[in-house]
């Protein structure tokens, strides 16, 4: 079911945390609300499921205006960061809860719980209590409980934050699998760009209560609308150089050397203040221009190696390359820079 926020406004006491936000989540789509803590992403989620009252605007599920519908009647499934399982109930009672409070008959509940337990692979855990489950199992139970009454929307609030690294990888693909199998519209709230990029069809990146950009993960990575988005996506992060255009298609870093600008910016007038963003994979792999400097830091990561290269004028560029041992700390290198893929931002931080 399509979810639409129209001019959604949320205030806490006198503080407006979200001002007139607009967002549409398409039917069957999984959308990530990505942003740093305090950006309003969880607030948005809780407004969609009705835990928080909204102070302005509208929330539509399909064509139904649910802005003033209590959360009990919105038919949403929510997975909370701490799973919020009911500790005094068994797993099957936990999953059955949304059905039993609705007053479904026993046989139907039993059938539905079985089906959803099969989908989430927890059939053998049904008799246990939450305290007897591991984190990943609790996560699956929470997911099953959220899905059991076939909600219009599935909302996930940092669902992987409490899991260890290995389980996180596993549950990432599990959640995505279940979402695709059920075809449910889902909204994932996360501060982890990897989760957002790997699990979702589209990402809405938020900062300070505002959506900065909505795009597919690839588009957003390739063409961030501003410096914040560029800096938020990517690990290891992008290197941002401050400087200005030279007028002849090059970029002068504050304090010295020049770097090439992408050809689309060839006509930018001289002295225009710019920030140039260089992702680690754009330096050292391929490209027309050569940049030379000294390796000042090496971080082997197994499959890849991360290098810091300090140029003659003190500018540090980062490079990530398939693991190599032919260069070491202190070596002088001249590596290619893929100028066409560099990101440039104007003085206000917007992409140019």
């Amino acid at each position, binding site marked *: 079911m399509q979810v639409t926020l129209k001019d959604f406004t949320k205030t806490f006491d006198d503080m407006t945390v979200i001002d007139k936000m607009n967002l549409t989540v398409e039917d069957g789509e999984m959308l990530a609300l990505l942003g740093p803590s305090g950006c309003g992403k969880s607030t948005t989620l*809780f407004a969609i*499921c*009705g*835990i928080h009252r909204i102070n302005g605007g509208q929330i539509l599920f399909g064509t139904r205006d649910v802005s003033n519908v*209590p*959360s*009990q*009647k*919105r038919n*949403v*499934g*929510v997975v*909370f*960061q*701490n799973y*919020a*399982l*009911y*500790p*005094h*109930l068994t797993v099957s009672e936990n999953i059955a*809860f*949304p059905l039993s*409070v*609705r007053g479904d008959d026993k046989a139907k509940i039993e059938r539905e719980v079985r089906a959803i337990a099969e989908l989430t692979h927890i059939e053998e855990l049904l008799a246990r209590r*939450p*305290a*007897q*489950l*591991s*984190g990943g199992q*609790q996560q699956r139970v929470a997911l099953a*409980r959220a899905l059991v*009454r076939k909600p219009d929307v599935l909302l996930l609030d940092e669902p992987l934050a*409490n899991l260890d690294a290995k389980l996180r990888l596993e549950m990432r693909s599990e959640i995505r699998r279940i979402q695709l199998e059920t075809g449910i519209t889902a909204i994932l709230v996360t501060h982890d760009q990897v989760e957002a990029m790997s699990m979702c069809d589209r990402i809405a990146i938020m900062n300070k209560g505002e959506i900065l950009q909505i795009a597919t993960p690839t588009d957003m990575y390739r063409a961030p609308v501003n410096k914040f988005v560029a800096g938020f996506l990517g690990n290891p992060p992008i290197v941002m150089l401050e400087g200005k255009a030279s007028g002849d298609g090059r970029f002068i870093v504050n304090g010295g050397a020049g770097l090439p600008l992408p050809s689309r910016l060839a006509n930018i007038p001289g002295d225009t203040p710019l920030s140039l963003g260089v992702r680690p994979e754009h330096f050292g792999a391929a490209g027309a221009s050569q940049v030379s400097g000294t390796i000042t830091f090496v971080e082997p990561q197994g499959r890849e190696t991360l290098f810091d290269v300090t140029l003659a004028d003190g500018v540090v560029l980062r490079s990530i390359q398939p693991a190599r041992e032919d260069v070491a700390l202190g070596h002088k290198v001249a590596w290619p820079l893929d100028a066409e893929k560099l990101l440039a931002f104007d003085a206000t931080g917007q992409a140019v």
Partner: protein
Amino acid sequence: MRTRTSLLGLGFVSPALALLFAFFLMPVVLTTVFAFTNMSTATGITGGSHVITGNLLRDLGNAGIDNDVITALGEASFSVTSETLAAAADAGVEPRFLGEIEARLMGQNFEDARSFESALKSLPSRPTRIRELKLATEPFERSILNTRYASRADMEAAITSMAPDAPAETISTIAEASYTGWRWIDGGNFQTLLDRPETIRIVLNTVFYVAATLAFNVFVGLFLAITTFYLPKTGAGFFSVLWLLPRITPVVLYAVMWKWFTWDNGFLYVIAEQLGLPAFNYMKGSVPTAWATIILVNGFVGASFGMILFSGALRAIPIQQLWASEVDGASRWQQIRQIILPQLRWPILFVTSYQTLSLLSSYEQIWLTTNGGPGSTTTVWALEAFNTALNNYTGNLEYGMGAAMALILVAVGLVLSILYLRMFRFDELVNKPRIEF
């Protein structure tokens, strides 16, 4: 090394152990000991002496002791010895008269007052007035009635001297019965309690009082905790403090306020009068209103206690669980019934068991308000025990009986605690959670 550390530990614990022993174990042990004695104000708590009183003689007669012996013990005799002469001198008998008595009657015994008096009348310097003569005989009277003998042997010797013909067995029985100190009476106190008709009444009163007050405590406590939980923070704080007042008010002041509230011309009285409802002293005027007063007086104190504990436990439930239940479609009532209450099991158990035990042993509010009245309709076990042991109107405090009553209270409390723990599956509650984060 190992021994030294464990000794050190023992050293650290020993003050606590000493306090535990002195203030917890000793009272229980002493109560148990007292419960099997007939200690009272009359017997004292140290040893006693041997005295035969008129009452005792009558009791012994009723108990079937030979009447001749009883008569012999009850009789007084007069004898002139150096001791009685000294006593007479002290009593102020004229010295010349006394000298004559010593010279002529020394060593003689007289069976009764009349023969001694006639003997005295024969003396030249006898007092002219008959009253003085009679007064002069008094120091020479010897009787074991109301005479204290320090040991049993002394008493037996005295009995033998008074009633030489009495068989040894009888003498022994009388000497035994003449003991004024406390003695072991095995289960005598408990037997007395069983035989008393008012015991059952007090037991029923106690059960009713505890059950009704407990129900009030738990339900009102829960109700307050849950309603304040859903109230906005500022209002909730105000209400919490309001409900705490009964608990933080000194008990006597609180009882006095209830008196003002319920007594003749008190708050309720005046209002009822205005409304044309029956107006009387609600605290003591009728049995139902007396019970209502007691239950409310104690109930409000306990309700605030329950409220505090339940509120704390409520706040310990992660808010996400409540959110989750809401988005799962649970109404407020379903949320309370199915999510909140099951998780309050432990505090409810605690309040229930703690309050049962404290209500069982509490009497001070009742004592200060209805004092068990009207009649003994609101007298509970603890109040009766207190009155028996420490507050008897006639002045004879029956420590032994009071201790027996207290001991029964302790036993009932223990049994109840064990029952509660089993009922609420305590072992399961304290199981280590295996939750992973």
